Structure formats: structure tokens, C-alpha cells
């Protein structure tokens, strides 16, 4: 007798929840340092991509209030007291480049122009040099998942600021096109396009991590209120 085999198709459940991750970096020294603008320029031309990445993209992970947008600008302003140069360097958006090499070229271009026009820049005192570092990054799950807007909002309030850095800043390099993890999930999984667009409209350079957190909370809080009001109608 022919045995009948019953094929039961089990639909595989895909977990579409948002998993909050966190990250920690440890500093690795390159042993290189610069005491003046010329040395900064020459080292910048030679250091590894990881070093440039650390001093630009990872600047915001340092988490305190800064008036600059990368370490080079910070040192130009506070160390060398070359405020105009600090402004030029601060205005460079690292996410607008396709590679770290392109970013390096732009940094060198700004420095070369400044050195050519203002060759008399001073040197800093010993101990205040620019120290070129790299970072080793550890990424790990926080143990929090969100399945909807409300869960997302609660988790966002309690994760460490470094988790926000990972999803809002670091994601832009992983995903490209200036997209962050939060807006991607809200748009593609939750279907909250309006919320996602508002998050994408936040200028990443104008806030520290807590500022970013506050803005996103405000946006989602507003969306949830609106959702509840609509459901009551």
C-alpha cells in the first residue's frame, strides 16, 4: 500500500521586531602626534582609514557637549586656537562621502588651503598635541526588542546613549544613504513613514546623543497620541 505522506507547510515566523544593540570602543594609539598644523596635515595624509574614521565618524560617540563635529576641528579650535579653520573642518559632513579616502582628501584640501593662506600658525605646548588613535569596537545586544511603536518608545527611553549612537550614527555607514536603523525599521516594518521621515530630518550634527533621544521620543510620542486620538473617533 502506498503510504500517504502529509506535507504540512509551516510558515516560518520571521522576527521583525527591532533589536536594540549597544556598542563600546576601546582606544588604540597609533603612537603618532602633531604639534602644529603642518604635522597634522602630514600625519593625516598617512594614517590608517580606521584612524580617520575614529576621529570623524565616531566623534559623536564621546557623548559630551561639543561645539565641533570632529576631533580635527576640535583641536584646531581649542588647541591651535585657529577658529576659522575649526569652522571649516566642522562643516565637513563625513556622511556625504562614499569612502574614508574621499573624506581624507577633503580634510587635506581644507588644511592645505588654510596652510597656504595662513602659514604662520603656532605650535601647541608639549602635552597638548593631537594624538592619532584608532578604536576597536564591540557590538552586542542590549536584550530589548520592540514590536510596535509603544514598545519602541519605552525601550528608547531606557537604553544607554551609546545604543542611540549605534543605531542613529553608526548605522549611516552600515546602511549608507544617510539612513539610520530607527527610521528604516519604522518605515519598512511598522509602516510609519511619516515618523521615519521626521527622524531622518533630524540634523545629526546639531545635537548630542541625549538631544537625539529627546527628539525621537518627542516624534514618536506625538505619533502615538495622534494614533490614539484617531482610534477614539
Amino acid at each position, binding site marked *: 500500500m502506498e503510504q500517504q505522506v502529509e506535507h504540512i507547510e509551516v510558515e516560518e515566523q520571521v522576527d521583525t521586531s527591532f533589536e536594540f544593540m*549597544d*556598542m*563600546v570602543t*576601546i*582606544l*588604540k*594609539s*597609533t*603612537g*603618532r*602626534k602633531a604639534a602644529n598644523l603642518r604635522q597634522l596635515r602630514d600625519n593625516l595624509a598617512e594614517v590608517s582609514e*580606521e584612524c580617520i574614521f575614529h576621529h570623524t565618524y565616531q566623534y559623536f560617540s564621546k*557623548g*559630551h*557637549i561639543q561645539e565641533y563635529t570632529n576631533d580635527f576641528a576640535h583641536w584646531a579650535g581649542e588647541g591651535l586656537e585657529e577658529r576659522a579653520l575649526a569652522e571649516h573642518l566642522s562643516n565637513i559632513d563625513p556622511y556625504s562621502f562614499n569612502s574614508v579616502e574621499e573624506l581624507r582628501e577633503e580634510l587635506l584640501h581644507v588644511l592645505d588651503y588654510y596652510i597656504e593662506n595662513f602659514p604662520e600658525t603656532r605650535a601647541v605646548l*608639549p*602635552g597638548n*598635541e593631537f*594624538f592619532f*588613535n*584608532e*578604536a*576597536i*569596537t*564591540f*557590538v*552586542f545586544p*542590549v*536584550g530589548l526588542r520592540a514590536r510596535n511603536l509603544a514598545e519602541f518608545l519605552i525601550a528608547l527611553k531606557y*537604553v*544607554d546613549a*551609546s*545604543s542611540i549612537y549605534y543605531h542613529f550614527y553608526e548605522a549611516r555607514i552600515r546602511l549608507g544613504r544617510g539612513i539610520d536603523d530607527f527610521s528604516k525599521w519604522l518605515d519598512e516594518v511598522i509602516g510609519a513613514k511619516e515618523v521615519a521621515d521626521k527622524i531622518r530630518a533630524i540634523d545629526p550634527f546639531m545635537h548630542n546623543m541625549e538631544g537625539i533621544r529627546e527628539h525621537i521620543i518627542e516624534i514618536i510620542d506625538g505619533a502615538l497620541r495622534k494614533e490614539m486620538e484617531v482610534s477614539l473617533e
Partner: protein
Amino acid sequence: MISQYAGISPKRDLLLLNTLGKAFKGKTFLHVNSTRAGGGVAEILHRMIPLLNSLGIDARWEVIEGDQKFFDITKKIHNALQGNMENITEEMWEYYYEVNKRNAKNINLEADGVLIHDPQPAPLINFKKNGKWIWRCHIDLSKPSPEVSNHLEPFCKKYDAIIFSVPKFARAMATDEFIVPPSIDPLSEKNMELTEEEIKGVAEKFQIPLDRPILLQVSRFDRFKDPIGVIQTYRKVKKYNDCVLVLAGSPATDDPEGEAVLEEVREYAANDPDIHILLLPPFSDKDINALQRMATVVFQKSLKEGFGLTVSEAMWKGKPVIGGAVGGIPLQIVHGITGFLIHSVDGAAFRTRQFLNNPLMAKRMGETGREYVRRNFLITRQMRDYLSLWYAVENKDKGIVFEL
């Protein structure tokens, strides 16, 4: 045990510690230094070793033994690395190596990870049996004596990695160099919460009035800590704001200049009843804690400094701090945000007056400072860094981003 830090340390540090604890479960992690008591290294190891064990790591701590001659030599090496002129003969270097060789026979050096603290036991690397070896240099290496550096370099080269406290101490070397700042333990006697009664009790013990602002510096009586400069600062401030100055330090038995500096300070204070010079015995952690908590403004007006953890101690207690812009102090004080960095007595006086006349600003900076320390200078962060670094060294061929 690590759960004691929940609600105090950043969550991410505790999460990563647990994750790395699982990765290193059952692995042996050996720390070696040269003293069981006294100094910041011993202080932190006393707390760190049980915490590492509580994560499932088989951590142990060994101390090398040496006679007076050995420690006289290593003191010279220490001073020369910090920039002093020292005469270290070939015979001394040989003795330094011989004592380490003898220790290598007595200490079980077998471990999966080995962390050697400071120059005294650095030559133990020559007796490595297995595992990854890391040298942790806690001292100021910004201007080391080239001769002493050259003698130590062959040992340094053999390590898998080297750790410095601040970037400026690192130098171009073939060995991988990492930056791990030191830390304070929020649950130790020196930093734990105290009741108002306990604080008042210490004030009464030292006859310190609590009815006026208290300016405080806790440090050894050492010229590099500029105690005279602190008194000059107090005098400039006193013209505008009535206040009390407390200079608290332990007797520096290993510092021949300590007595002389203390005498200079006493003489300079000229029996001013509002200057309290306290010579505290060793293990006065709770008294120091109370002094820091009763202070209105805390100084670390150093002219030269290794890291200056007293700054983090004061910041942890929410105090506005004023520090000399030297050594590791600028790493702790973000100027104008977590405190003020100064370069002169006038600067210190001006900033003190700002704090005394603007308590809201002082409070805000104190609160920001406490949070800054919570994120960056607690023991859990230092443990996290040690384990991360060990993991990175073990997995060096797997890149610079680790997904755990």
C-alpha cells in the same frame, strides 16, 4: 557581585562585562604587581579580582618580592620614566633582572591572560609560559629618560600589547598600544555615600567649621601638587568671599622631600585659623570621603600629574572642581563643562570666585561631572576595557569590529 553596580554603572558596561565573562568563563587571568597595599594599583586590584571571579573568570593576583635594594632601583627607574635625572648603573639593571628571574621561579606564571602592572615586574615577560601578555604602565611617560626607555624597550617589545592611561603617554612602537584610563570604585570607603551625621562627625573631629564655604585639596605634600599655590589662591579668594581652606594629605614616608614641603606649607599658612592642614594616617579613606563631601570647591592644582584620580573622586561626589591642565586632569575636566582647567594661581582664584558666587553654575557643573565620571571613570569601565582588550588581542586576526 557585579550586580551591586546595577543602577550605578552604565548598563552597557555591565552587559558587556557579562558577555565577556561568558566568553572567558573558566579562563585564567593573572595580575602581577609589586605591592599588596598602598597606591592606586593595589587599591583597584583588591576590588577588581573578586569581581572578575564573580564573572566566572579564574582571576588571581600575585605580588613580586624584592629587597630594599631592588625597590630603590625600581624607584629610580620609576622617577627616570617620569622625567627625572637618575643614575642607574649596569649592575643595578642586572640586579633588577635577577630579582625578577627569582620571582619567575616562585610565581606560577601559567595563565591564559597575564596583566603585568608597572615597570617593577616588566622583565617577567622573559619567563612567559603561555597565554597573552599585556604590560600596563600606570605612570607618566610623557618625557621619559631615553636611557631608561632603551633598557625597558626589549621587554616591552615582547608583550602582546601595552596599556597607557592617557594617549600622550603612548609612543611609536611596534607593539600594539591601548589607552585605558584608571578608575574609582563607587562602592569603596572612599567613594560610597555617607550620611550627614558621618560628614558632620568628621568635620567635628578635624574642627572644620561648616558655616562657610570650604575649599579643599587632597594630595601628598609634594611640590608638584602646588600646595603653596593653593594657599595663594585661597588668600586671593578670601578678599572677596569668606571661606575656609583644607589641605589634606598622608605623610609621604617614601618621599624624602615630603617633610620639608609640609614644613614650608605650615610656615606659609602662618597660623591662619582658617587654614586646616591635615596629616592623615594611611587608610583614612572614609575621612577623605567626608572631607570631599563637605567641600564647596575641590582643587587639584597640580603642576605635574600622572592621572589625578582625586579629581574623579570629587566629581563623583557632585563637587565643582578646579584642576591644573596637566597629566590626566584634562581627560577628567572638560573645561567649562565638568569643571575648570587653570594655568595659574590667578586662574584658580578667579574660577573659585565664580563658583562661590554662582552656586547654580557650580551645582550644574558638579552634576555634569558626576555623570561624566559615571560614564568614563568607574571600576566597571576599567574591567570592561581590560577584558575587551584581552579579547581583541586573542582575536587580532579578526579585525577591529567584534559582534558578540
